[in-house]
């Protein structure tokens, strides 16, 4: 079967798979950004307990494989009475994993803000919360956005693993089509191209736009 005939027949399934992939990506990204901020700030805290929690979280999620985390959340947590639906388990695992990597970026971004900014905020009598929210974080954000672009691509790729717990994403649909038709080159080739298009023409341009937008807001463009 030629590529054109193949696509004509199977495009609805590939499209619905891609839709699930995008949904997983967006939910995991939102969760990942929230966790990154929390854990990144906690790792910089004066409080040893908060710092310890963040370090443990980051090391566990960066030290093990995403596949292991996904299986653990989906197959082991129910044994503790915490049954999570597969779609939720999918973006939960991917988001928590990315959050650990993102936390290090947040920490690096905050530490890269010049010392004078901290002192100036102190000098005009800002509370620590005000200082972080109004002076430090906006500048840290601009500094850390470029590596976040790479992390978002990793996140998109990570969502392909949710197919292992049968979330019907693009990867899962391609496997299903492959096992019923054996048109491997067509189906996996098409899936590769769809992932590439998502990464190259959606995620990367958006992150570039965000970088420019934030830099302009800080008057640095």
């Amino acid at each position, binding site marked *: 079967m030629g590529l054109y005939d193949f696509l004509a027949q199977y495009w609805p399934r590939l499209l619905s798979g891609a839709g699930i992939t995008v949904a997983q990506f967006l939910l995991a990204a939102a969760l990942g950004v929230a966790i990154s901020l929390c854990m990144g700030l906690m790792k910089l805290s004066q409080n040893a307990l908060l710092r310890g929690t963040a370090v443990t979280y980051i090391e566990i999620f960066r030290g093990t494989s995403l596949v292991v985390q996904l299986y653990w959340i989906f197959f082991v947590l129910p044994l503790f009475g915490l049954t999570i639906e597969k779609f939720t388990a999918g973006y939960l695992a991917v988001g928590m994993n990315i959050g650990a990597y993102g936390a290090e970026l947040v920490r690096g971004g905050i530490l890269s803000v010049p010392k004078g900014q901290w002192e100036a905020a102190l000098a005009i009598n800002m509370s620590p919360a005000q200082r972080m929210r109004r002076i430090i974080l906006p500048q840290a954000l601009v500094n850390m956005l470029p590596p976040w672009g790479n992390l978002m691509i990793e996140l998109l790729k990570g969502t392909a693993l949710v197919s292992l717990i049968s979330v019907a994403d693009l*990867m899962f649909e391609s496997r299903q089509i492959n096992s019923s038709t054996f048109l491997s080159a067509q189906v996996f080739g098409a899936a590769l191209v769809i992932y590439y298009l998502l*990464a190259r023409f959606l995620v990367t341009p958006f992150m570039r736009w965000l970088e420019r937008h934030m830099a302009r807001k800080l008057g640095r463009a």
Partner: protein
Amino acid sequence: MFDWKWEFTWEILPRLVYATGNTLIAAGAGYVIAVVFGLMLALAQRTPSRALTFTVREFVEFIRSTPLILQIFFVFYVGPQFGVRLSPWMSGMIAIGLHYACYLSEVYRGGIESVPKGQWEAAIALNMTTAQKYRRVIIPQAIPPALAGMGNYLVGIFKDTPMLSVIGVAELIHTANAIGSENYRFLEPYTMVGIIFLAISLPAAGLIRLFEGYVRRKLGL
């Protein structure tokens, strides 16, 4: 609540240790392919041919922005369609090696670009051929700054080996899946796999940091 059975844990431990060996072999073999092929990809981008540079760049971008698990499926299933039958190990190593070769080529590229211009000019002034120039002047100076990145991807490849389980490579997750479905117990196998991953990747990351510091001191940075 904690229904952990130590007896069962000890019973499955030998199988998991054996599978750890397979995981390490897979990571090692994949890394060797990635190191060699990555250097070729990096050097191919430095030839005078603009067409070659462009093609290799696009290839690297494509591989880097699509999921490894999909590439593993692609290599494993597309071969037989054209009469090339690859074993799971073989196709797994090709896919993972190729994927990380693209990441490593970027690391090398950074290393090569960090060699000061004077060194290139000096090599030309000494009338070295291109091969001599790279082998004796540029590459030895490009590797040390690239070592940190290379080390991180070694740990990265180790953490990505569980994806090989999907085509039947008997590494850790594959073995844990088998144990789990034989005994209807997933708590111990998956938790042990997580612990094994931590026990290997955390010390490895620490060693890489130490090694990086050592190289920096040696170079007087």
